[in-house]
């Protein structure tokens, strides 16, 4: 094996210094630099979106009329059911507002949801993040909750100009205060459960006296100030004492399908 020449030593030194400088940058600068590098992928993201749209269009054209008529009829029926539910919900909202006024409670602010498309997933195996096509130009800010109609997905991490990173539930950097829907309203913290299953997370730091049973619903508790109260997270699979036997931990099957995410709703502030 030949020894390195002086020029090769210089190149190696340069790479090491560059890596060390990048690793020691302040987080704000590193995030800004990351956004700049990520923006180099925008042409590819645009191309992939166009290709997806063309493929979907082709599938629509190929679909037989009978299938379209069947889907139309199903959607009409669902629309009628949703209209009935909307009327009921509007009445309940009015009643809620009247009661809040009587008791003197502060009215809850309405959710301002924006639809975003998932454009890329984390290429590394040790993080659970996705990129969405909303950024600071759309008024997006860090820590905005991200959800689907089925339940909570995660929160916004780094915000770029046109795209942003979303930390999914189960990522080591995304912890959520959650409450179990049982008589005692036991509160714990949602964290990662393992590297392989993206549909299961762990509910930690439950009190030993918690009455957690399989099938019970887990919701956001509203503690911590990031996530509003009452967003469904998932259902309990099983519970067991933690290794230190100081608290209980439970496995939770997520309501939202994180591995098949295509569109998400971002709760704008």
């Amino acid at each position, binding site marked *: *094996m*030949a020894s*390195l020449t002086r*020029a*090769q030593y210089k*190149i*190696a030194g*340069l*790479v*090491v210094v*560059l*890596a*060390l*400088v*990048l*690793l020691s*940058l302040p987080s704000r600068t*590193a995030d800004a*630099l*990351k*956004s700049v*590098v*990520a923006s*180099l*992928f925008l042409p*590819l*993201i645009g191309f*992939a979106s166009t290709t997806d749209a063309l493929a979907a269009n082709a599938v629509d054209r190929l679909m037989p009329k009978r299938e379209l008529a069947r889907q139309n009829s199903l959607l009409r029926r669902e629309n009628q059911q949703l209209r009935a539910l909307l009327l009921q919900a509007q009445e309940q909202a009015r009643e809620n507002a009247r009661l809040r006024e009587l008791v003197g409670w502060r009215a809850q602010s309405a959710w301002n949801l924006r639809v975003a498309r998932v*454009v*890329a*997933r*984390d*290429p*590394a*195996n*040790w*993080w*659970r*993040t996705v*990129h969405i096509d909303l950024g600071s130009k759309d008024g997006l800010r860090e820590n905005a909750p991200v959800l689907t109609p089925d339940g909570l997905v995660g929160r916004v*991490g780094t915000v770029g100009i046109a795209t942003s*990173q979303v*930390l999914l539930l*189960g*990522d*080591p*950097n995304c912890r959520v205060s959650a409450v179990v829907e049982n008589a005692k309203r036991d509160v714990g913290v949602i964290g*990662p459960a*393992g*590297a*392989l*299953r*993206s549909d299961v997370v762990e509910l930690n730091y439950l009190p030993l006296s918690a009455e957690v049973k399989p099938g019970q619903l887990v919701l956001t508790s509203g503690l911590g100030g990031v996530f509003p109260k009452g967003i469904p997270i998932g259902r309990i699979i099983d519970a067991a004492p933690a290794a230190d036997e100081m608290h209980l931990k439970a496995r939770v099957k997520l309501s939202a399908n994180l*591995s*098949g995410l295509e569109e998400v709703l971002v709760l704008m502030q």
Partner: protein
Amino acid sequence: MKWFRAITILSAAWLGVFLQAKCGITRTLLAAQLDVLPPLLVYTALTSTVGMVALVAVWGGLCLDALSANPLGVSILPLFVVGLAINRGRGLILHWQITARLALGAAAGAAVPTLTVLLLLTGGHNPLLSWGSVWQLLVMSASAAVLTPAVFKLFELVDCAFAYRPAGATSFRHDREIRRDKVLKEAE
């Protein structure tokens, strides 16, 4: 041609990282994401200079970290170290043999993520690790082993398509030369 090769390899790294982030089929089927940079680095280390290895490591690492939750720059060193090690030993490696390419791909596919995770842990970060990570490492290593000969084949095709064709052997032979020149005849 050197510049063309460099641009092709860097474009492949850029495109490869994007495809890695876009296609989640292996994540759904095998619960692990493939890594395209180690096979590309093996190819670069065996066919190019240390400077090119450094360029691919820096560019590929930056692209990967930009789409990932990794701290920016953490993938550069593992890629460069593995690339440099292969480049230094390329005189001893029978790199035209498919077995050697498979073995190098497998080794690079296991070494790069291991070194990256070690760097992350050293830097006080908390990556998602469990016993399932061993399975993911095996999948990454096996996929890199399979992808490495494919990368060599791909670049061979690119070279065939864009490189200058070698000049064909001439049919001229001294012993079959027909001598018509008057001066030559007189000399005889």
